[in-house]
């Protein structure tokens, strides 16, 4: 079965790449979805450039969310930082519950149009899964292991870096993966404030009632999210071959 799954993934990846590189070849497929001779393939920009721009925005936002969320997670699990837990949790929860569109609306007057408001929205939206997973990961390190680490003479810093973080890594990486995938989809809204991305294609489709455009933007985004999820999962398994938890 894993073999069949791999074949399917490779096929999906090949499909995505060939569509992004030469979308015109797929024109006959999309033609039935257009009316009055409208173009079946998005023609106001390069699809590959847009897809890569979106992916880039998502990765930058995820890097920032990971840094902040893991940092907060570490802080509130230290004895000296425990009192910041309720505050951190509230902040992170607001980031997730405040709709990204509303974040854009608030951010544009402050930082202007373009990538920046989108990065802020995605950053805030992506904090929660990473933060919560970091907390669970650090809190579920067995007490005997922590006691042994201190008892051997590790400093607090050595214990964190060589014992706690490696043991929490599977959960932290899972949080980062979740956050990334959520944001690949969410990033399309960035196009409402002039960030480059596939949202542009969807919006163009909505404005001109061109179902083919809407479908292209949506399918490429969806396929990217799925493939990214699988790719990161495989990467995690490779990285964590040595961390086996019973």
């Amino acid at each position, binding site marked *: 079965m894993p073999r069949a799954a791999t074949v399917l993934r490779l096929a999906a990846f090949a499909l995505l790449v060939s569509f992004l590189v030469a979308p015109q070849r797929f024109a006959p497929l999309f033609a039935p979805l257009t009316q009055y001779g409208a173009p079946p393939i998005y023609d106001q920009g390069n699809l590959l450039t847009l897809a890569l721009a979106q992916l880039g925005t998502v990765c930058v936002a995820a890097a920032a969310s990971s840094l902040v969320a893991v940092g907060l997670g570490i802080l509130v699990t230290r004895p000296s930082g425990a009192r910041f837990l309720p505050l951190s949790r509230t902040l992170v929860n607001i980031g997730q519950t405040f709709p990204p569109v509303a974040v854009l609306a608030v951010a544009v007057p402050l930082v202007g149009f373009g990538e920046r408001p989108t990065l802020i929205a995605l950053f805030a939206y992506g904090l929660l899964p990473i933060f919560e997973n970091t907390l669970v990961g650090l809190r579920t390190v067995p007490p*005997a292991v922590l006691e042994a680490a*201190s*008892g051997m*003479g590790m400093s607090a810093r050595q214990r964190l870096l060589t*014992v706690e973080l490696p043991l929490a890594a599977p959960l932290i990486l899972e949080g980062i993966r979740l956050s990334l995938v959520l944001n690949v989809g969410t990033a399309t809204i960035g196009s409402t404030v002039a960030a480059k991305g596939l949202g542009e294609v969807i919006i163009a489709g909505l404005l001109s009632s061109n179902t083919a455009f809407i479908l292209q933007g949506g399918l490429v985004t969806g396929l990217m999210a799925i493939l990214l999820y699988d790719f990161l999962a495989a990467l995690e398994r490779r990285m964590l071959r*040595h961390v086996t938890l019973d």
Partner: protein
Amino acid sequence: MIEVENLTKRYGETTVVDRVSFTVERGSIAVIVGTSGSGKSTLLRMINRLVEPTSGRVLIDGRDTRGDPAHLLRRRIGYVIQGYGLFPHRTVAQNIATVPRLLGWDARRIEARVRELLEVFSLDPASYADALPHQLSGGQQQRVGVARALAAEPAVLLMDEPFGALDPIIRTKAQDDLRGIQQRFGTTVLLVTHDMDEAFRLGDRVAVMSAGQLLQYDRPAALLTRPAAEFVSRMTGLADRALRLLSLVTAGEAALPGPSDGPAVAPTISLREALSELLWSGADSARVVDADGTVRGRLTVATILARGRP
């Protein structure tokens, strides 16, 4: 050598350890026994400063333990806990190498030491050095835990219920192994347990604790013959104290010159086991015979019984 002087720990109004003083001689095993909540683990954890004492002091080989930062002190003291706390993401060899690496030993020296310890603990380096802890049996994990604690050749080894998670047969074996290893490396061992049998088996001296106080610190036989408090006799058990006393003396120590046509027993077994053998075989005396066949003397029932009285 561990010298504990007036060691006290208070949490608010509660005194968990109350002015405890005792000395563990270099190269001996001292066992602290007590019921749960007696303060025995807190006492042990104050020695490597996982718990900071409220007052009093601890000297290890004459040096005050407060002289160094706590984590540097702990690198000089072996520590084994119940459940062992092996690092699940590190191999057996990496686990054992933990303290030498913290101390900055060079790679060759670490490798040699890890190999030596694996052999001492009967773990074949070829099959176990690169194994992960979850691939080991409980008894093997326990041995890795002790090997890790001894890796940097500490003069002192602290053990908190180190055999608690083992089944009885493996536990007895692990206790014997600890004795052998302690003698081989000349380590001073301080062990905490709630199991009186374990204390009698291992301890050169036994400390009995109750409600934060050290009631008696003495040789095992003295706990039976001259208990300092009623609680001590309750802990050691009144009903079988004579048999316990017999279990502290070996056949070799009690044997007297003379012939015997009774069963042969090894000089290393306890009088309790020798008596059981005599009861079982119906003989009046046993021959004490070395492993190489030399007769060391005889043990009569009367000789044995005389040893079971204070």
